[in-house]
């Protein structure tokens, strides 16, 4: 979309603004859409996800909650069962510990247990990611923790265009959708933001389909799969690699569950080399799932598929400890060189 948009018509938005716009437009279009969460009213969300909504729609539809996640996420499931379309914020994904029952044993199973008679059109938006020194209870990703559970859809945009489209799809979906947004991409001044996340966002409503990955850079030599922040790291690495004659194809998963194994399979069938870049804990996660899916598609690998992840340790506080553990473009470049120059498996 950026290529065909002239500078004059470009509306470059942050992910925070794009999310707020999507929710606001949905609220305009459908009185059943309401927003709940901590500090989503006057403050407009700690991460700017509900900017301007209280002023436009009032405290009846934009409801600040007590610090009672078990109750208000449970209430959101009840609202959804009664035909409303709640958008709920869990401020940091790390806080899921106090309310997971309402998410995985309730929301995720409404449809199944009712034999499809009760649906749960609920969006749970939540912030993920570290790198800014907020330590181990405010920096986790936990993609796989949610993606593992049948009945939940999980999405995460890497840029504002996808953020709006995914949010509109999530609100329209009849199922619970966990909408993760990465703090390093959110566009809040006080956090610093990867510039590539701020892109043109059309004014009108549009959907980015859930379950579809995007190839954000074509390349023949190696496939780099990322999500959220790591897409930008992969793109940065791809630029460096291109100068060395290695053409990397970069895939942005966009949806974590259901994972678009097909898109990865098409790419690795061609490149026969794969690196997954994931800032979540290493074991039992997105990287393992992507690699397993690729292997199941029957690739004749030129090099064993590999991954760059956060190791299996809690996120440490000190930058001297945290930063070396995070995925980086340099790590991707290094590993890509090994895979491309290391010869056959």
């Amino acid at each position: 979309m950026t290529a065909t948009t002239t500078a004059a018509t470009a509306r470059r938005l942050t992910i925070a603004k794009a999310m707020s716009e999507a929710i606001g437009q949905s609220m305009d279009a459908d009185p059943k859409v309401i927003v709940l969460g901590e500090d989503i009213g006057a403050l407009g969300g700690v991460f700017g996800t509900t900017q301007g909504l209280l002023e436009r729609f009032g405290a009846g539809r934009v409801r600040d909650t007590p610090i009672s996640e078990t109750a208000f996420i449970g209430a959101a499931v009840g609202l959804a069962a009664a035909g409303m379309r709640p958008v709920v914020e869990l401020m940091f994904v790390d806080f899921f510990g106090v309310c997971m029952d309402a998410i995985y044993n309730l929301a995720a199973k409404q449809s199944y247990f009712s034999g499809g008679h009760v649906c749960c059109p609920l969006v749970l938006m939540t912030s993920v990611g570290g790198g800014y020194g907020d330590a181990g209870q405010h920096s986790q990703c936990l993609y796989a923790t949610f993606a593992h559970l049948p009945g939940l859809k999980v999405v995460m945009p890497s840029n504002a265009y996808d953020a709006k489209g995914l949010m509109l799809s999530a609100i329209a979906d009849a199922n619970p959708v966990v909408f993760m947004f990465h703090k390093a991409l959110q566009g809040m001044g006080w956090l610093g933001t990867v510039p590539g996340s701020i892109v043109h966002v059309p004014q009108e409503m549009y959907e980015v389909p859930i379950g579809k990955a995007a190839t954000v850079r074509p390349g023949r030599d190696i496939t780099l799969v990322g999500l959220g922040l790591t897409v930008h790291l992969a793109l940065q690495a791809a630029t460096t690699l291109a100068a060395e004659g290695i053409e990397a194809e970069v895939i942005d998963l966009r949806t974590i569950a259901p994972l678009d194994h097909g898109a990865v399979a098409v790419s690795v069938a061609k490149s026969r080399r794969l690196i997954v870049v994931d800032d979540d804990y290493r074991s039992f996660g997105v990287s393992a799932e992507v690699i397993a899916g690729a292997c199941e598609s029957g690739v004749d690998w030129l090099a064993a598929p590999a991954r760059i992840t956060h190791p299996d340790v809690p996120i440490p506080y000190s930058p001297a400890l945290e930063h070396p553990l995070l995925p980086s473009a340099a790590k991707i470049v290094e590993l890509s060189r090994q895979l491309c120059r290391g010869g056959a498996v």
Partner: protein
Amino acid sequence: MPAECDVRIRMYAQMARSRYFEEAIKVAYLEGKQPLFNMAKGPIPGEMHLSSGQEPCAVGVCAHLRPDDTVTATHRAHHIAIAKGVALNAMAAEIFGKRDGLSGGRGGHMHLFDAGVNFCCSGIVAQGMGPAVGAALAAKLGGSDAVAVSFIGEGAANQGAFHESLNLAAVWKVPVVFVIEDNAWGISVAKRASTAIERNSDRAASYGMPGSFVADNDIDAIYAAAGEAIQRARAGGGPTLIEIETWRLEGHFMGDAEGYRPSGEVAALQTRDPLIVYRQRLAAAGVSTAELESIEGRELRAVTDALQFARKSDYPAAESAFDTVFS
């Protein structure tokens, strides 16, 4: 149980130390974050929740505690850590993410652990309440008269863990005191907008335990209320819930523009700054200016030394991130 003169002087000293610590951390935190505020930058990254204004709660309660008593605290915990006797140098070094920090830089400002004085805190609202009940049961089972104190904010009184922990403590009749620091705000949400009753101390009745309310951030009154509760707990009389009206003189965290706060609120609270109020009260009670100034000088030096220690300490080796995941 009114405080003796020497206790009051010690409490003033601790309040001063705590405030000087927050003022020094505030300056250090803003290094590298101006003119453009970016939480990731500077010698102290991440969120920073300062306790300025809330010193009376921590100091008035902890004045009754021994090192073998347990304290669990919140994300806003510097004042409580200091009042419980957490090693100041190691605490400062932890906040700077250094090797000599309490946990070698692994935990940071929201995760201060000092096993030497049985102190810990957490970034998850109300998380410390269950562990305090456990510590109290352990003391009871072990035949000691140690107690546990769990500090929370008023916002935490709407968390499930609050209600479950109160009931459990009462059913088990364990020596725990729950202390609510009511600063009227949970980030941007006012207490009256999140809590169905005016005083959380009234909730104690639902769990069959005594509840008390202390108005006005008054350290002498806090000392008295806490003394009664802790004495009861030590004597086998079970848990108590105390709510204290206190003030948050800073934003929720550093960088908070506080657009949600009525204009003039902070300025009005500053005129009732508990440190100034208590200084005046002690002076009126006959403590000389010279003595007050000497206390202030000593506490300021301790804080300055702690920050210097923290700055001089090395960063931990990157590989140490992999240590202590398991014991």
